């Protein structure tokens, strides 16, 4: 397939009710119905994982008076997935402003998820009060230098969890920092270009809307080390809505919040929780499922909403 065809293919995107399904074969995206994505999941060597983001335990507002309740409903739905997700990625903002007890409450709720393991990266709401002390005491163990960033391999796919909220001062945007970028370069260097890569972090690693701080200032440097790979998926949270962008072989995707939606970039005077009624908000919060099939290399991302 030549470059122009691929471009055309990338523009092919379909909303299937509340679920948007992307499928990637050898770095080429196509749209699929939810049902066929599930069928692909049954193929040999396939695995599925779920991305949960921006749970904001402790938030209370017009769009959601009880984010723990909406999260519980979504977790119940995750527990009906067959096969069960191999693992879950939580891409940050577990708590709303480090409300006392929120980390504990979420940890208790996530114990009920039928999966092997949950991986975490922090959001700014999890670290702003104490520079990440509490977060790292809970989730830093086993990460690189106990800084919170990490990588692991699962069935031939290399996963990288990055922290871009701990240097979150002054410039008004997320940042990875020199140490983490150097580590990333070393972490990726032994891998062959055909290794599928999934990167996850809280603040988008692409410039979604810098005016609202929806950007990671030094992400470009990190991305230079990812460009040589044939298939890279970058999964973020932070902006509480689904947005995707494709740049060469790198596909960026942001997940919904399980708590409340935020306005589309520039569509409101400011970011923040949308002031809409709960019934409407439930159509705008949810989780993301991703399925990978090694060999054929399709990657399907399914965003589903609560109602």
């Amino acid at each position: 397939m030549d470059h122009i065809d691929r471009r055309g293919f990338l523009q092919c995107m379909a909303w299937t009710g509340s679920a948007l399904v992307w499928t990637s074969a050898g770095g080429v995206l196509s749209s699929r119905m939810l049902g066929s994505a599930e069928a692909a999941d049954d193929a040999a060597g396939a695995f599925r994982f779920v991305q949960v983001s921006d749970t904001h335990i402790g938030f209370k507002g017009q769009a959601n008076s009880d984010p723990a309740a909406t999260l519980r409903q979504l977790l119940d739905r995750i527990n009906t997935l067959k096969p069960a997700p191999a693992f879950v990625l939580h891409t940050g903002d577990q708590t709303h402003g480090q409300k006392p007890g929120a980390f504990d409450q979420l940890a208790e709720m996530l114990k009920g998820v039928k999966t092997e393991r949950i991986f975490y990266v922090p959001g700014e709401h999890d670290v702003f009060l104490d520079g990440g002390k509490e977060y790292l005491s809970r989730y830093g163990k086993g990460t690189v230098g106990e800084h919170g960033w990490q990588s692991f391999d699962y069935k031939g796919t290399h996963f990288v969890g990055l922290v871009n909220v701990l240097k979150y001062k002054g410039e008004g945007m997320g940042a990875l920092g020199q140490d983490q970028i150097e580590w990333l370069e070393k972490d990726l260097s032994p891998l062959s270009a055909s290794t599928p890569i999934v990167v996850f972090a809280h603040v988008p690693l692409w410039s979604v809307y810098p005016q609202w701080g929806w950007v990671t200032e030094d992400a470009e440097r990190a991305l230079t080390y990812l460009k040589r790979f044939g298939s890279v998926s970058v999964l973020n949270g932070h902006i509480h809505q689904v947005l995707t962008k494709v740049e060469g072989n790198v596909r960026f995707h942001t997940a919904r919040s399980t708590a409340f939606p935020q306005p589309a970039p520039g569509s409101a005077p400011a970011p923040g929780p949308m002031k809409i009624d709960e019934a409407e908000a439930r159509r705008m919060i949810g989780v993301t499922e991703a399925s990978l099939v090694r060999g054929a290399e399709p990657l399907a991302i399914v965003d589903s909403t609560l109602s």
Partner: protein
Amino acid sequence: MKKRMVILIGLLLAASTAAHAVAGRSATVGIKEFKFAPAALEIRPGTTVTWTNRDEETHTITSATGAFASPGLSNDETFSQTFTKPGTYQYFCALHPMMRATVIVK
């Protein structure tokens, strides 16, 4: 009679000024739609500034030099800080660092 009245008013004014000095001056800053208003607040030394968060999103009042820092303020919560020394105090929201403002004490 007129003279005594003037003296009385003078005494009342003096008393109220004294009371004001004891209680200290106060000023307010609102937080709405991810903005501090006023973005530049000019006050006299000894003034207590009170910020009120009118957004549903949590915000903080965090000094750029570490001189003061609020916890996360939920909707309608307030934070107060008294400024005794003249100077320019820059602050921002630790959750949304593009929100920046200044208190000028002189």
